[in-house]
């Protein structure tokens, strides 16, 4: 019986696929834990930076940092699209691609029509997607996530900030998956430059301590703002990284479950076929024996 063997083969192949998805789930869970702890580890730094900045927000106007707030008419746009290097993570990458295209149409129709939107991709999947489109990819970073360090991220961030200061781009947006929990990520858009104004709260004056400022308040603020932008870029990458592993873990969990369902159905089919074969064989033997007797 051909079909009996076919069913058995399918059973074996589904089982081995299930083993793979199960293993991938476990690996993703471990990676997710690591990625999450990196986000947590960065928190004290970010908080301290924010605290210092609020101490000094009064002297922002005279400082170097002011130019990061400069709002210009938007002619040229840069989008930093953060995806993952590997697939099998559910809708992780496709939702980013979709979000990016939607954003272009809704937020920057003029720049889109004039072909004034450039793209920087982080992650292989984003590169592969946008390589097929008409947009100019000024930079692509395909292996950043294999070994994600602050230095590597910082280098990119500084280049991006310089291109804003040089007037190459009037608006720079980050598109990435925000990490909510292991099962949920939110495709998000964040304005990177110019810095949205609501981020500085001049009204919320922290308890004024009589600090000595060296070399000067303005110089410190300028550097603080630049540093907080760079840290923010790094945080975005960390979040996307955690979200990626969470998405893959969920996707692999679903796949393992689906394989289980499939296995159950196949097993039932297999047993039915087997029973049918046996019944048929008995009938043949009995029929043969009766033919001899009569």
């Amino acid at each position, binding site marked *: 019986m051909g079909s009996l063997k076919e069913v058995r083969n399918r059973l074996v192949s589904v089982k081995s696929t299930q083993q793979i998805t199960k293993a991938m789930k476990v690996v993703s869970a471990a990676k997710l834990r690591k990625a999450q702890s*990196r986000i947590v*580890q*960065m928190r*004290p*730094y*970010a908080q*301290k*930076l924010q605290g*210092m900045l609020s*101490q*000094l927000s009064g002297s922002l106007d005279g400082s170097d940092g002011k130019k990061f707030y400069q709002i210009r008419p938007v002619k040229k746009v840069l989008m930093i699209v953060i995806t993952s290097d590997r697939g099998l993570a559910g809708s992780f990458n496709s939702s980013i691609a979709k979000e990016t295209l939607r954003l272009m149409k809704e937020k920057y129709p003029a720049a889109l029509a004039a072909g004034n939107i450039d793209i920087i991709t982080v992650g292989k999947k984003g590169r592969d997607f946008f390589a097929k489109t008409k947009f100019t990819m000024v930079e692509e970073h395909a292996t950043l996530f294999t070994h994600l*360090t*602050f230095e590597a991220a910082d280098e990119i961030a500084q280049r991006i900030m310089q291109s804003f200061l040089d007037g190459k781009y009037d608006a720079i947006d980050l598109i990435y998956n925000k990490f909510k929990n292991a099962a949920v990520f939110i495709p998000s858009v964040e304005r990177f430059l110019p810095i949205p104004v609501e981020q500085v709260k001049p009204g919320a004056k922290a308890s004024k*301590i*009589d*600090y*000595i*400022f*060296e*070399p000067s308040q303005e*110089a*410190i603020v300028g*550097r*603080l703002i630049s*540093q907080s932008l760079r*840290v923010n870029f*790094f945080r975005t990458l960390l979040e996307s990284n955690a979200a990626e592993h969470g998405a893959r873990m969920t996707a692999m969990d679903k796949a393992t479950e689906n394989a289980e369902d499939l296995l159950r159905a196949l097993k039932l089919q297999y047993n039915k076929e087997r029973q049918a074969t046996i019944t048929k064989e008995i009938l043949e033997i009995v029929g043969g024996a009766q033919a001899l007797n009569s």
Partner: protein
Amino acid sequence: MQLEILTPEQILFSGEVSSVKFPGTAGQFEVLENHAPIISTIDAGKIRVRNAKGEDQYFEVNSGFVEVFKNKITVMV
């Protein structure tokens, strides 16, 4: 006094110290017990951390910030 050296990736140092010397932007400076509150930027160089026993420990930095407030020093590099 208490010293904490933070980077975006980890806490590099955290503990009790007796003096710390920084490569400040406006020149090298040393922080001892009961230093006045200060916020300063630091440039490339070495931070020298001295503990109560007089033992030194060095940290190489490229740039960063120091805040001293009530015998608590926070360094961000």
